[in-house]
């Protein structure tokens, strides 16, 4: 579990009695964000009709996210495209940077994912109320449900709505933590079984690394697409 510990880097920064020191988590956030910005800078630097590789990849990310948003939330979600794009890129690059040995996985901390999820939850709720007023509450009352079941269903809907930030944040955090813990466990086996028995866990470790890269991408995708779906609920009220 040592790979998940947060420790201070540099001087202690305290504002109003709250410790806001720069930590290794902050450092890897900065690294991920810098990689994203560098990548996008290189990808949009030359305006070529026939793109080079970096430009092509940047444009692929753009069209990928744009398509994801228009497929799930429709054209009304266009103003939120930059946010979802940044969110997707940030989570993806934090996950991917976390896959490097000796690095720190920012998204394996519940507080980080919870803040992202809470922000999305609050923002989506505000958007819903701004767009539809009190009619937004009809999201809790699905149509076509027998009157007997309606109170029960409404309660379930409210609980499921309120648990959205928890499920969204825990999904990402737990996936990242579990994957890295598994890798660590199998790495430990390689060491403890030595040169005779270590080959099996080593091969597992290699396979798991591949799986973890897939999971890193998939979880970023899931995080972004769930955001789109929540946004869709808020924008297009048809239940």
């Amino acid at each position: 579990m040592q790979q998940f510990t947060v420790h201070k880097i540099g001087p202690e920064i305290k504002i109003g009695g709250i410790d806001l020191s720069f930590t290794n988590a902050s450092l890897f956030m900065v690294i991920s964000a810098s990689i994203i910005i560098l990548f996008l800078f290189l990808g949009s630097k030359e305006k070529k009709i026939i793109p080079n590789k970096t430009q092509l990849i940047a444009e692929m990310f753009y069209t990928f996210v744009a398509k994801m948003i228009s497929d799930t939330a429709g054209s009304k979600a266009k103003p939120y495209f930059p946010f979802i794009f940044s969110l997707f890129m940030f989570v993806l690059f934090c996950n991917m940077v976390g896959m490097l040995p000796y690095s720190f996985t920012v998204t394996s901390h519940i507080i980080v994912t919870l803040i992202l999820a809470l922000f999305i939850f609050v923002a989506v709720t505000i958007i819903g109320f701004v767009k539809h007023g009190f009619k937004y509450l009809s999201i809790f009352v699905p149509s076509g449900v027998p009157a007997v079941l309606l109170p029960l269903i409404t309660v379930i809907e409210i609980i499921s709505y309120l648990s959205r930030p928890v499920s969204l944040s825990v999904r990402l955090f737990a996936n990242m933590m579990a994957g890295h813990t598994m890798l660590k466990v199998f790495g430990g086996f390689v060491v403890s079984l030595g040169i005779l028995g270590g080959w099996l866990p080593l091969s597992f470790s290699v396979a798991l690394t591949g799986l973890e890269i897939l999971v890193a991408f998939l979880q970023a995708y899931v995080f972004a697409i769930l955001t789109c779906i929540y946004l869709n609920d808020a924008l297009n009220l048809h239940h």
Partner: protein
Amino acid sequence: MRRSFGLLIASIAINTNLFAAEAGMPQLDPTYWASQAFWLILIFSILYISISRFYLPKIKDNLDNRENKIKEDLENANKFKEQSEDKLKEYEIILENAKKEVNKILFESKNILDKNIQSKKQSMEKEIEKEIAIAQQEITELKKKSISSIQNISENIASNIIENISGDKLNESSIKSAVEDISKKNIGKYL
């Protein structure tokens, strides 16, 4: 395989013991929660602003440019295609006209030739008829001449034969009238 599996389970037990020795999940230690939240919000905001302000519009511009360029190129290609089709039609029309003209020229020249041949033929026929008529005249004259000469010859021959047979000289006029008589009777056969 079985042995290594056993080893695996054993080492899982060892490792979990090792993990248990470490202090809980660092994620649930609230010491740096505020710091992480603060830095996350700060860095994500910077990232969001720079992406939405600078990079996304650039990439969008690029994509739009390419799309426009492709559309333009396609339109141009279509235009050129239409032009080439028009040219082809023009060419076909020209070809058709040329063919028509060729036919016309052929027809006209054939007509002229026919006329020429006809007139030549007619003149030739006239000449031939003339020649034939002249020849016929000559022939009839010759015939007339020959009839009179045949009469003379036959008179002479007849008188000679009679003289030789009978030894007498017959009256020339009687012989002449007899020959004339016979020749008149038989001349229709030869003329």
